[in-house]
C-alpha cells in the first residue's frame, strides 16, 4: 500500500513537529514574545521553575516526537520487507517507563511546594499596604491614611492607579464588589481572583522602579477587556510624596470622596 516516497513524506511531516516546535520557542524571545520582564522578588523562582519544566518537557517532547518520526520512517510497510515483530509488550519496559516518570513527577511536585508557599501561604506579618476592590470594570484602591489603618476617616481613595514603594513588602487586601475578577500583574508574576464575600491577601516585593500593567484575568462581563489599571513602582520618597499629594487632592473634593468611601466601605 502506498509507494516508497509517500511514507518518507509523512514521516518527515511528523519530524517537522519537534523541529518547528523547538524553533518556535527558540525564536519567540527575539521577537519579545516571551515572559515579560520580571520585577518581583518571588518571580525569579517562578520563572526558574518555568524554565526547569520547559527543559524537562522539552527533552521528553523531542525524544518522543523523534521516535514517532523514526518508527514511521524505519518501519514503513512500503520500504521494509521484514514482517512486523510479533510482540504483545514488555514487562520490564512497562516498569521502567512507569517508575521513571513517576519519580520525576513526584520530584517536580515536591520541588515546587516551597515557591508556592512563599507566594500564597507565607504572608508577611504587616498591615495591608492598600486595599484593592474590583468592580465592573475598574480597580478601586484604598490606602490607609496617616494612621496606617484601613477603614478610618483618613483613608485615601483612588481608581486604577496603584503606587507601591520599591523593595518593600507589599500586602494587598483584595476584594470584589460584584462579580469575580482577577488581579493580574504580569511583571510581578501575581495573579489572584477577587471573590465577592472574600478578603484575600496578596503580597509581593517589587524590585524595579517603573510602570507596569494591571490586567483583569477573570471574565467579569462585557467590559472585561478594558478593566485596566497601572502599577507604579517608585522609591519610598516618591511614594510618600505622591500619597500626600493624593490626600491633599481628596480633601479638596471632600463630598465626592465621601461618596466613594461609603460605597467601598459597604463591600463585605
Amino acid at each position, binding site marked *: 500500500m502506498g509507494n516508497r516516497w509517500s*511514507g518518507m513524506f*509523512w514521516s518527515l511531516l*511528523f519530524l517537522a*513537529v519537534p523541529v518547528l*516546535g523547538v524553533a*518556535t*520557542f527558540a525564536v519567540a524571545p527575539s521577537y519579545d*514574545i*516571551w*515572559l*515579560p520582564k520580571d520585577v518581583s522578588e518571588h518571580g525569579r*523562582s517562578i520563572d526558574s*521553575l518555568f524554565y526547569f*519544566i520547559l527543559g524537562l*518537557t522539552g527533552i521528553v*517532547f523531542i525524544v*518522543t*516526537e523523534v521516535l*514517532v518520526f523514526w*518508527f514511521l520512517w524505519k*518501519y514503513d*510497510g512500503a520500504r521494509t520487507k*521484514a*514482517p*512486523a*515483530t*510479533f*510482540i*504483545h*509488550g514488555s514487562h520490564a519496559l*512497562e516498569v521502567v*517507563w512507569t517508575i521513571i*516518570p513517576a519519580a520525576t*513527577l513526584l520530584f*517536580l*511536585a515536591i520541588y*515546587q511546594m516551597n515557591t*508556592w508557599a512563599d507566594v*500564597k*501561604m507565607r504572608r508577611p506579618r504587616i498591615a495591608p499596604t492598600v486595599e484593592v476592590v474590583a468592580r*465592573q470594570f475598574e480597580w478601586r484602591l484604598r490606602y490607609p491614611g496617616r494612621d496606617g489603618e484601613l477603614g478610618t476617616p483618613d483613608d485615601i481613595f483612588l481608581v486604577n492607579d496603584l503606587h507601591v514603594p520599591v523593595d518593600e513588602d507589599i500586602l494587598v487586601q483584595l476584594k470584589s464588589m*460584584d*462579580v*469575580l475578577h*482577577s488581579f493580574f500583574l504580569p*511583571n510581578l508574576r501575581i*495573579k*489572584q481572583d477577587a*471573590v*465577592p464575600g472574600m478578603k*484575600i491577601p496578596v503580597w509581593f516585593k517589587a524590585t524595579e522602579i517603573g510602570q*507596569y500593567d494591571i*490586567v*483583569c484575568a*477573570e*471574565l467579569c462581563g*462585557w467590559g*472585561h*477587556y*478594558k478593566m485596566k489599571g497601572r502599577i507604579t513602582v517608585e522609591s519610598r520618597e516618591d511614594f510618600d510624596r505622591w500619597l500626600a499629594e493624593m490626600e491633599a487632592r481628596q480633601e479638596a473634593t471632600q463630598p465626592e470622596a465621601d461618596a466613594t468611601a461609603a460605597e467601598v466601605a459597604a463591600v463585605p
Partner: protein
Amino acid sequence: MSTVQAPHAPSSPAVVTPRTGQSLSTFLSTYVFSKDHKVIGLQFLFSTLLWFLIGGLLALAVRWQIAWPWSQVPVLGKLFAQEGGQMSPEFYTMLFTMHATVMIFLVIIPILAGAFGNFLIPLMIGADDMAFPTLNMLSYWFMWPAFIAFGASFFVEGGAASSGWTSYPPLTTNVASSPGSGWGQTLWLLGLTLVGVSSMLGSVNYMTTIILMRAPGMTMFRLPMTIWAMFITAILQAFALPVLTAAGFMQLTDRLLGTGFFTPEGNVVNNLATSTGGGHPLLWQHLFWFYSHPAVYIMILPAMGMVSDILTTFARKPLFGYRPMVYSIAGIAGLGFIVWGHHMFISGMNPALGITFMVSTMMIALPSAVKTFNWLGTLWGGRIQFTTAMLFAVSFVSMFIIGGLSGIFMAATPVDIFIHDTYFIVAHFHYVLFAGTAMGVWAGIYYWFPKMFGRLMNETWGKVHFFLTFLFLNGTFFTMHILGAVGFPRRLADAYHYETFHHLQPLNAFMTWCAIGMVATQIIFAVNFVWSMFYGPVAGRNPWNANTLEWTAPSPPGHGNFDFQPVVHRGPYEFSVPGCEKDHLMQTDPPDAHSAALAAAH
C-alpha cells in the same frame, strides 16, 4: 486437521432484502425514531458534525475579533448590522462562550459516546443491539430539546449565554451583570441539563450492554481498546454527571427563585442586589469542575481507544502492553475524580488545598505517559501502512504529547499563577481536544466509514484533508503557547491597549489566517464524506484486514448486525502471527486456524 473450516464466517455477502412499498411509518421507524443502534449512531454523527460546523464558524468570528479588533466583520458582519458590521464586546463574549459550549457539549461529548459509542459497541462485542434500544433512541431525542435550547438562545433578548462555558457565578446568577445573563443563561442551563440526560441514558446503556451482551468467548480482556475506553467513559459519566446536573439546578434556582447558593450576603452587581445571600461563588466552581474535569477525560478516552485500534491495524502489530493500556485508562478515570481543584489554584481556594490538588494532578500525567509509550511501542517494529486513518491516528499521538506536556506547566502551581487564564491554557486544551480528540475522531471516521456506509472514502483527498488540517492546526494552536508565555489573557475582546500585549497583533493575525485555512479545509472533508457515501468504492466486510468483530459483519450491517453467531477465540490484536499465512487472525477465526495454516504449509 488439515482443512480450515470456518462454519460461522460465511463468505457470501449478506442478502439485503429490498423493501418495497415503504410506508411513511416504516420510514419513520427505520430512519427517524429508529431503535437500531447503528441508525442512532449515525443520527448522532450527522447532528454533531453539523454542530461542528457551527462551532467552527463561531471560532472564526472569535479569531477575527482577536486579530483585528473592532474592524468590520466580513460576511458575518451583516448579521449584526446594528453595530455597523463590527462586533460589540458583549457579542464577542457571547461568541467564545457559545463556541466552547457547542464544541464541548454538542460536538465532542456526543460524537464520541453518542456516535462512535452507539455504532461500535454492539458491533465490536458481537451483540445484535444495545441492551435497551428504546432508552438508546431517547438518548438521541433528548439532544433535540438541547439543540433547540442552545440554538434559540442566540435569538432571545440579550443574546445567548456570555459568561464563558464555565458559567461562573455571580456573573451568571445576577441577571444585571451581563447581557447574556438573562434568558440566554437560563436556556444554557436548560440545554446543559438535557445534554446530561442524554449522556446518562447512553451511559447506563453502554455499561449494561458491555457487561451483559458480549458474544460467547468475548472475555473482558479480549475487548478492543475502543470498548474498554467507552466502558470506563460510561462509568465516569454515571458518577460525575449527577453533580453537574444538581449544580445546574442550583444555579437555575439561584436565578429564578433567588435561592442564593452561589452568592454571598449583600451581593450587588450593576445596582441589582441579590435578594438572599449566604452562598459562595466557589461552591459552583467545585461542583462544576468535579464534573468537568472527569469530563475532559470523557472527551478523550474514547478517542484514545479508537486510536489504539487503528494504530494496531495499520502497524500490523499487536497492541503494545494491552493490560497496562487498560489499567492506565482506569487510572486516569480514578485519579480524574481527585484533581478538579487544579482549575481553582488561584480562585481563592485555600492554598494548602491547592498543594494536594497539585500532587494528584502531577500524578495523573503518569498514566498519560504510560499510554504514550505504549503507542510508541506499538509503532516500533511494525509494517506501517500510511492510510488516512493511520495518519490521523499517529497525529493524535504526536499532538497528545504536546497537550500532556503543557499540562505539567499548569499543574505546577507557582507557574500556574502566571499562566492561568492565559493563552497557554487555551493552547493546552486545544492540543488535547482539537489536535487530540478531533484528529482521533477523523481517524475513526475514515476507518469505520466503510462499515457505516459500505463504501470507502477517497484516500487521496483524505490525505490532502489530513495534511492541511495538520499544518493549519499547528499554526493556529502551537503559537498559543508563546502567546501564553507573554501572559496574553484569554477572553479579552481587545488586549492591545495593554503595554505588555500591544505588540502581539501580528502573531494573532497569523493564527487567525491559519484558523481560516483550517475551517476552509473541512470543505474537502465534507465533500469527500458525502460523495463517498454514494460513489465511493464498495468496501466489502473487512477492507483493512482488521481483527475485531465488526469486520465480520456485512458493510453496512443489517438490522441485528451479524448474519451468524460470532464466537470469539482470541484477543483483538493478533497481527503478523509468525508462521501464519494471513498476516492477521480475526477474533472469530477458529482456535486452530493458526496451527492448521502451519500444518498446511508443511
